[in-house]
């Protein structure tokens, strides 16, 4: 009897030890409500971890984190922000810890860092949005978009938006798009904005008929009733993945790894779907309004290569558009 009790107790203690606990400091660019849902889903699996969230724009989050690093005491254990190129910059400075989650096996390697320092968590495709009150038959290709009359298009500026800078790198490496396409846009008096939110507002508000914007914004707006529609152009779409990465030398590696596992797991991907994002784990249905992952034609390029030419690309764009 006593041995049995000891055995049970040992097993219980062992279980408790395996369960991550303590505090996990998360820096994220997820909107307030989404961040809360993400944390709630994680806590349902790991109730003993207290997640402290700092949330703001990707730009604010990363610049605060980088300054903390420079000052010698980073305050984040896990980062969850918009795009892979940002993580490439962090990786190049040895700020990330490699961790290959067992859950990553189910995910297309395109969305994972080969060295395991970060992994995508969802699909955010850049598409054409149009105002349904101004446009009845929308264009279906990037090429036709650039041939529209002057003053018809709004897009985020790569000088201010990390996602737009990523798109610039990918698009200019594609034979069918390339710099010629951006030169055509520059001639068409494109309205440049600081970010995707402003582009959606400009299109939905009727300032311009078309916008180049990350897909979930117009899809959500259209579900709520805004006069916007979405086109996934024939040539394909550049995709950012809101990756997650573990900070090198963090205070709670166990909880940090559990958090990465959770985001890539079926449960975590379902939470993303419930928030209205497209999952990147095959076999999980996309939310209403999105195409299926299998039907998506993704334009991509080597992440390290993109990071290498990022500054030069941005500068060429700024000169071309007279910024």
């Amino acid at each position, binding site marked *: 009897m006593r041995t049995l009790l000891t055995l049970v107790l040992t097993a219980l203690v062992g279980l408790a030890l395996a369960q991550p606990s303590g505090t996990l400091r998360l820096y994220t660019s997820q909107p307030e409500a989404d961040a809360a849902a993400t944390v709630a889903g994680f806590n349902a699996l790991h109730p003993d971890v207290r997640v402290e969230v700092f949330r703001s724009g990707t730009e604010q989050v990363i610049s605060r984190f980088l300054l903390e690093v420079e*000052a010698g005491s980073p305050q984040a254990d896990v980062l969850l922000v918009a795009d892979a190129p940002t993580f490439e910059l962090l990786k190049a400075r040895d700020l990330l810890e490699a961790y290959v989650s067992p859950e990553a096996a189910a995910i297309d390697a395109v969305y994972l860092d080969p060295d395991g320092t970060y992994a995508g968590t969802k699909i955010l495709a850049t598409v054409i949005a149009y105002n349904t009150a101004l446009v009845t038959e929308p264009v279906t290709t990037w090429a036709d978009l650039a041939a529209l009359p002057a003053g018809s298009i709004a897009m985020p500026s790569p000088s201010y938006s990390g996602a737009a800078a990523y798109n610039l790198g990918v698009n200019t490496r594609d034979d069918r798009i390339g710099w010629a396409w951006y030169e055509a846009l520059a001639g068409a008096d494109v309205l440049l904005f600081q970010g995707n939110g402003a582009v959606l507002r400009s299109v939905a508000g009727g300032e311009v008929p078309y916008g180049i914007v990350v897909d979930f914004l117009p899809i959500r707006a259209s579900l709520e009733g805004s006069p916007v529609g979405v086109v996934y152009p024939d040539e394909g779409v550049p995709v950012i993945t809101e990756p997650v990465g573990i900070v090198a030398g963090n205070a709670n590696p166990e909880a940090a790894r559990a958090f990465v596992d959770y985001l890539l797991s079926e449960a975590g991907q379902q939470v993303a779907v419930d928030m209205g994002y497209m999952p990147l784990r095959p076999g999980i249905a996309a939310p209403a309004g999105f195409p299926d992952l299998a039907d998506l034609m993704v334009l991509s390029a080597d992440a390290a290569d993109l990071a290498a030419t990022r500054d030069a690309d941005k500068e060429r764009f700024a000169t071309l558009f007279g910024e």
Partner: protein
Amino acid sequence: MSFARIARRVASPAGLALAGLVAVLLFTNALPLWRLVERAIDVDALRWLIENPQARRASVHSLRVSTLTALLATALGAMSVFLLERLALPGRRGLRLLLLIPLIVPPQILTIAWLGWLGPAGTVTRAAQSLIGAPRPPWTLYSEWGIVLLLTVFALPVAYLTLTAGLQRLPRSVEEAARIDGANVLTLGLRVVAPLLRPYLLASLVLTFLAALGNFGIQALLGIPARFITLPTLIYQRITSFSAGGFAQAAALALLMAIPALFVLWLQVRLNRRSDAVESQLDTPLRYPLGRWRWPAAALAWTLLGGFVTLGPFVSMLLTALTRAYGLPPRLENLDLRHFTFVLMELDAFPRALQHSLLLAGGAAVIAALMALALGYVLTRSGQRGIPLQLLVDLPYALPGIVFALALVLTWLQPPIPGLRLYGTVWLLLLAYVGHYLAFALQPLGAAWRQVDPSLEEAGRIDGASTLQVLRHVLLPIMAPTVLVAALLVFLNAFSELSISALLAGSRAETLGWLVFGLEQAGNTNQAAALSVVLVAVLGVLGLIAAGVRRWARASVGPAPP
């Protein structure tokens, strides 16, 4: 001065107060600025600054829009003050409140409201377009003029409040004497009142210049589409490039902004030297009757100031908040209260953020006003020697919020006082607000001190009163109304602060501005607008309560100063 004498001076109540003041100023302003200087002293960054054509272009643009804004806002502010504080204009109380709205709404949301009013698809633009039958909008807000217009709207309440503080202290006998001598209203305004208000006019010019120089929201929303780069947008670009030298470049640019700020302050001190002390009396304000011009004047003031500048954009913001989804025409079937329900009932962080913002803005207002009361006294008596101190106070306000916030990160990540951990707490925000908005309190109070005749103090001393007694019975009663205006300026600005909060608000340290920023960023423009309307409503209710308390106090105590 012997050591004993210095020791006695420091040990006196005034000396102690001053020492405390300097200590606070060290942490709110001096240390963060020093961290920026440290970063900016970098050969590569400085070379970039000199060689980069963008930096040159941004500087020229920034100087141009800030100067134009300062001149326009102060001129319009002076006109508004005359209309609302000197003429018996019907409905002036309502107008006065309306005029403050642009100060309460975060600049980003204010700009979106104006885009709905005068933007490419705005109400006025559409009407004008169909009126003249033009195929394209006849103007665009995405331009240098659009930026100047919006910055002026944003700075107008600042100019108005600063100038009101001056007018309150102007003895009516001066104006009455001029009137008896046969001066008409125009001569009176230009030849008599304006010279007497000079310190306040200069204070208004300085404040509106700095406000325009450091504003990021308006310049980003209108300037990026216009491809009109300014210092705040370039600084933001450098910081968020996340490249190795990015922050050093941003710090160098931030220090570049100190040059115009320094020049403006030097000019202010020079021009102020000739200003006269006014024997201040607190009497009932003068109001000129308008006679049969009463109603036409009121109609004009309401249409231009109330309707075009404030109500139009505000109604456009209200409609955005009421519209089911962004971009739908504001027809009845598209309107409902869902965004208000969301903000008030479902947004968990709202009650916390409201509480934080009220406490932070209130705390910052009280601390900054008291600090500025003392600083203003010291600075007035020190002339040009005071410029460095004045710059220390004004520079954090001239810097874009993101730079100042990052400087605070560098200052407080490793506490400068061991054990004092403020990072990630609301207390760091309080510190940030005091440092950032102290300039708002100092300018009107500095101007007020300049008009206090030193003979008042001397008379008190001769009568045997101690420093504290002179302060309490002679100086404070004169200064009290200006202290209130200064506190109000800080409170209104800090209440919906956005750029600093977006970087420093930590876990459970939310503020209203941070909340607005988050909604806006997630693409929920309607909800951001609803929250902004709620902010205006909360302050409106607070304002009514304050007015009620004042009236009640006046009724129970008898006639009191206005």
